[in-house]
């Protein structure tokens, strides 16, 4: 055996120093790799957000079927006209029947200037986008774009446009990208999510209570339920869609179409309704809600349960008065997170059968529907580039909604933590 003297591991001191220096260099290189990966993650998130913002606004070359100079008073620009002037343009150029319909929806005299301008654009001038550019190109390459427009669309107006506008949020679905909106989709998402949460939250929380407070985990059935829940959480969402298609849409069609309640027109109705979608989504997020509720319940200190039992409380009294109030903030946070997951899901609803084109507001659980992410998908899947721009605009709305939800969940979690 070699004797080990301090400072001599078979190397001359200068060699050892050199070796240590080399190892530190390798260490720094390693750190650089780790940091780079982390930066890649951040850059990707940045690119994702940039891409959406970039597509949601930009220069648009508008062409008109009717020459504006011919119909607008004094050849003035559309934006410069006042609301009464615009109303006059509409009455002068539309058929009396069309005007009457508009007046029935809302009197023209009471409509805002922006609303009337949009109507004149759509109905009178029949403006449409001949070409559109993303924001970066619009800012950096404007002269080239102007040259192209002058050459290819000599009559077009070139305007910097945000595809996301108040009108975009409130307008129903339309076949023209310029006039389509996400009102129908937002209402559809709202209906679906209400049904989803109404089913998933009570069932999920109840199951969480059962598994944490009642279930004897030495019994195989309870262990099977627990294992099963974690496996369900990993089942691809599209499989839930197929489950919904086979069970809610097809097997339970009389119920899900509303036919059994006389709520729908039996000749046209089928099971591809808001109710089917909500129930499918409820099954999808049920495992998330259960697992989260279990964690929240487990975090309630057992000393509270003991104190309660020690006073002669029954199990349910203990749960209702001490465990649930203590677990509530955690359950709420998890519920919001599950809700944002359900709002963003698309695949299962495609399988259950979102409508590709509906323009009316859904008004009952037995109506056909589309949802915000579903609308984004359908617009993205279209070849025309204008639809990609409105898909980006809708994505902005969806992301803002989800970030707001998640932020409120995280804020709530940090604030409401009860200290024992």
């Amino acid at each position, binding site marked *: 055996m070699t004797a080990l003297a301090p400072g001599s591991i078979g190397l001359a001191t200068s060699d050892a120093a050199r070796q240590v220096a080399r190892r530190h260099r390798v260490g720094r290189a390693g750190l650089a790799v780790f940091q780079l990966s982390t930066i890649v*993650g*951040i850059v990707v998130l940045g690119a994702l957000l940039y891409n959406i913002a970039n597509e949601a606004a930009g220069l648009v070359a508008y062409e008109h079927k009717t020459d504006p100079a011919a119909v607008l008073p004094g050849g003035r620009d559309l934006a410069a006209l006042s609301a009464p002037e615009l109303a006059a343009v509409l009455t002068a150029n539309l058929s009396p029947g069309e005007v009457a319909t508009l007046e029935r929806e809302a009197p023209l005299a009471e409509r805002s200037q922006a609303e009337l301008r949009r109507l004149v654009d759509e109905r009178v001038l029949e403006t449409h986008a001949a070409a559109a550019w993303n924001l970066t190109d619009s800012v950096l390459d404007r002269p080239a774009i102007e040259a192209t427009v002058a050459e290819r669309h000599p009559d077009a107006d070139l305007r910097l446009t945000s595809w996301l506008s108040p009108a975009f949020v409130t307008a129903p679905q339309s076949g023209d990208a310029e006039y389509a909106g996400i009102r129908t989709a937002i209402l559809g998402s709202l209906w679906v999510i209400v049904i989803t949460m109404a089913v998933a939250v009570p069932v999920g929380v*109840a199951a969480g209570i059962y598994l944490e407070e*009642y279930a004897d985990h030495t019994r195989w059935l*309870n262990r099977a339920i627990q294992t099963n829940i974690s496996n369900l959480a990993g089942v691809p*969402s599209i499989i839930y869609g197929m489950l919904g298609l086979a069970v809610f849409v097809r097997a339970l069609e009389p119920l899900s179409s509303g036919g059994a309640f006389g709520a729908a027109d039996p000749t046209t109705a089928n099971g591809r309704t808001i109710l089917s979608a909500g129930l499918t989504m409820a099954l999808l997020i*049920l495992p998330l809600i259960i697992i989260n509720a279990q964690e929240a319940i487990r975090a309630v200190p057992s000393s509270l349960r003991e104190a309660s039992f020690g006073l002669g409380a029954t199990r349910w009294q203990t749960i209702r008065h001490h465990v649930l109030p203590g677990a509530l903030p955690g359950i709420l946070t998890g519920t919001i997170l599950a809700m944002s997951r359900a709002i963003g899901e698309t695949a299962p609803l495609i399988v259950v059968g979102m409508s590709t084109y509906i323009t009316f507001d859904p008004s009952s659980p037995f109506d056909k529907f589309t949802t915000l992410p579903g609308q984004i998908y359908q617009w993205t899947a279209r070849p025309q580039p204008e639809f990609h721009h409105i898909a980006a605009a809708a994505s902005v709305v969806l992301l803002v909604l989800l*970030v707001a939800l998640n932020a409120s969940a995280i804020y709530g979690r940090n604030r409401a933590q009860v200290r024992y």
Partner: protein
Amino acid sequence: MTVTTTRLRGVEAAPEADTVPLGRRRRWREDAVEAVLFAAGFVSILTTGAIVVVLGKDALHFFRNPDVSLVDFLTGTVWQPQLGKFGLLPLLNATLMVSGIAMVVALPIGLSIAVYLSEYATPAVRNRLKPTLEILAGVPTVIYGYFALTFVTPILRWALGARTVDIYNVLSAGLVVGILVIPLVASMSEDALQAVPRALREAAYGLGATRLETSLQVVVPSALSGIAAAFMLAMSRAIGETMVVAIAAGAGPRLTANPLRSAETMTGYISRISGGDLSYNSVDYDSIFAIGLALFVITLGLNILSGRIVRRFREVYE
């Protein structure tokens, strides 16, 4: 003990009676509550049962079709339902290519982020980075699909030439699915690294190891099973991902090894077929359930394996 108002006025001495009734009151409410809660837990079993029955029944219906044989389904190289050709391979191949590319992206980047967060980052940096990952994990997949089609694909076509890269292609979808599962790989791997006892790191530092040597030669190997579990769960997630491939990978099954071409995955096929107006008694309808069953078996297998590994490595340290 029957509590009466008069007896509870103030607190008196303990009851003088020698025996007090301790008999079990029938607590109907308690039993009813437990039954309801159990029923809620049982919904999960029903869900799994329903998935198995639904997929199994219609898949069986599919294989009963005289045009279809199980052998052709598993070995056939062409999926052309109109021509009566039902070979799963083109769809499976596209699925595996997408998830393979995704793993090549997600594993190194996710693991590096995990090592950085667990072994290097200061608490302040961690507290900034983890929410970023959470946001990335919370972005709806349809938006990732949009990102693949309108950002990644144009870059690929610009870099490699529009002739060589299809508008819809496997590579773009695979890269973006990889990005999509990075948060999953990173957070699960970080949990695994954090579970490695501090004493092991201290032992390595005590021998004069640098931070990198400690991380890569001591901590990561100790957490390997947890990292493997993360990898498998991420793989299962990538295989089941639908929106990105439906948007960016293309429609139409094609057996190809070239990731720059378009090819339809299993999930892409299911969503395309079921999205249209589908008649319930067609072979198309049955075929998506056969594919769904294959998808379910593959992902469930990966999930169970991942869960097993996680449980085993927990036992080692606890």
